[in-house]
């Protein structure tokens, strides 16, 4: 709560920039508020002692300075209670705290007056008890009304947080399941449909060898084989689009190295990322690198390019940069499409491409 304090009385040196503006006019390293308070406290204490001395010199008797103490205690008390109230969080809570502070001061005045009239003047009356009771009732009712919506809000906020937690958790599960499913589909395409088609071309090949003397049958078999080969090629492209085989087989670093080698840009690679990445993170990081390298090869006219895969505070950082012409349109390139994928993983994608000073694509993906 202390960081919310804004009352001048609580401006202290440690609170940073806004306070420093006051520095030149501060005495002995105190803020204006602290200075005023220390003056107030000293004046009050001094006056109290002075009055006792006058009372003693005056021949003692009726302890009239007690009334002055009461008077002096009020501003000091107000100073403390107001300071406390102001430190409460802004809004309803602070309002209620202010009411409590004032009511507290009023209650103290009442109590002390009651005690002093009783002790010093011998007046024994019961009415202040009713006043105190009334005050307490009023303040309590006010607090209840003022904080009523706040209690509801706190409840609502708790429910909201629980909902966000649930959505975050289920989204993560859905993405993880989806990524695992895609890998399974990729594997199934290779080992299932594609393998069967390969077996089919093999059988057709064997059949072809046996009908060497029948050109019309051979042509038919040839056509069938061509169709099967096309189907195999389409399945392969489909599987590669889901997850490139090297990524599935050997992980992100190997896949990125192969990708960079294929572009022949002499890309410098620094990689810390290891195999234990979640499939969804791995695939997204891979497709970001692929897209960035494609852009570099196509548009950048770069002499150098580099890729860094590092871990920082439970996130995978992917950085792809080049020293080309820059000026890439972060929203227009294929990277905009990847942004959605990155954000679905609670990640962040940024593209920096000032004209003439290269392009840097930076992605952070939380993992674990």
């Amino acid at each position: 709560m202390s960081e919310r304090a804004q009352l001048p009385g609580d401006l202290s040196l440690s609170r940073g920039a806004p306070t420093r503006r006051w520095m030149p006019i501060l005495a002995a390293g105190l803020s204006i508020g602290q200075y005023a308070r220390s003056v107030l406290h000293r004046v009050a204490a001094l006056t109290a002692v002075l009055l006792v001395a006058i009372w003693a010199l005056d021949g003692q008797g009726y302890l009239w300075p007690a009334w002055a103490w009461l008077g002096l205690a009020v501003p000091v008390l107000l100073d403390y209670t107001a300071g406390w109230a102001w430190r409460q969080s802004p809004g309803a809570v602070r309002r209620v705290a202010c009411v409590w502070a004032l009511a507290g001061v009023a209650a103290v005045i009442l109590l002390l007056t009651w005690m002093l009239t009783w002790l010093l003047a011998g007046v024994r009356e019961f009415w202040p008890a009713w006043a105190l009771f009334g005050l307490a009732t009023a303040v309590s009712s006010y607090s209840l009304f003022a904080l009523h919506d706040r209690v509801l809000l706190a409840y609502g906020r708790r429910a909201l947080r629980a909902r966000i937690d649930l959505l975050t958790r289920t989204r993560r599960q859905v993405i993880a399941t989806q990524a695992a499913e895609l890998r399974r589909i990729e594997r199934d395409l290779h080992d299932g449909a594609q393998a069967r088609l390969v077996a089919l071309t093999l059988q057709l090949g064997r059949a072809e060898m046996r009908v060497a003397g029948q050109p019309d049958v051979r042509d038919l078999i040839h056509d069938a084989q061509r169709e099967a080969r096309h189907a195999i090629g389409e399945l392969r492209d489909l599987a590669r689009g889901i997850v490139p085989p090297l990524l599935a087989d050997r992980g992100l670093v190997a896949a990125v190295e192969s990708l960079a080698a294929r572009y022949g840009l002499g890309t410098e690679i620094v990689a810390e990322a290891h195999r234990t990445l979640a499939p969804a993170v791995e695939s997204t990081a891979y497709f970001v690198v692929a897209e960035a390298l494609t852009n570099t090869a196509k548009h950048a006219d770069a002499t150098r390019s580099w890729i860094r895969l590092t871990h920082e505070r439970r996130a995978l950082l992917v950085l792809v940069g080049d020293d080309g012409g820059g000026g890439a349109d972060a929203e227009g390139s294929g990277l905009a499409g990847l942004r959605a994928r990155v954000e679905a993983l609670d990640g962040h994608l940024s593209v920096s491409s000032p004209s003439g000073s290269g392009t840097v694509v930076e992605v952070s993906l939380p993992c674990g």
Partner: protein
Amino acid sequence: MRVVIAEDLALLREGLVALLRENDIEVVAQVEDGPSLLRAIAGHEPDLAIVDVRLPPSFSDEGILAAIEARRRQPDLGVLVLSQYVETAYASELIGENTAGIGYLLKERIGDVRAFLDALRRVAAGGTVLDRQVVTQLLAPRGGPTDALSRLTAREREVLELMAEGRSNTAIAESLVVTPGAVEKHITNIFAKLDLPACHDDHRRVLAVLAYLQVAS
């Protein structure tokens, strides 16, 4: 020729065994995973191992690792790796230091029985056979007008791809349905454009092309 086959899909394995036996190639062992491949090679000392890339237990690059290990133990063993997809990284690793007796083909090439058996024999005899897709992949995204590869015509690229499979001029001509003379002309053009020393030996020609593509560096 004595062959060991490592393929986990029974359908394909059996088809392959039948195909080889029909063509008088002896299949001495059929296995389903990497470790049994190494045992079979040690036990049978075959001329050639036909290996699927994705094998149990890991179902990732088990076949590549087993093939490399088998070659380390028996350097004169021919290894033909079959895969549903082509990865240039795997091609580079397979070729490694020792380019003799290595093949890396897409599985569907089995369908062209004659070319497949031809490739098998070349690998067993110490030749190098790389799928044309390896070349396609290496050529595909390279851009820029200064790139020598971009100066090749579509036809020349096709010839280059078939050359990587270690085919002879006659085989290339047959596959593209052109005359051997035309193929000869394309090859001369390719070597001139890529600034490679001309050579007529099919195997050395593959190596020159691969070295150019930085596969066998």
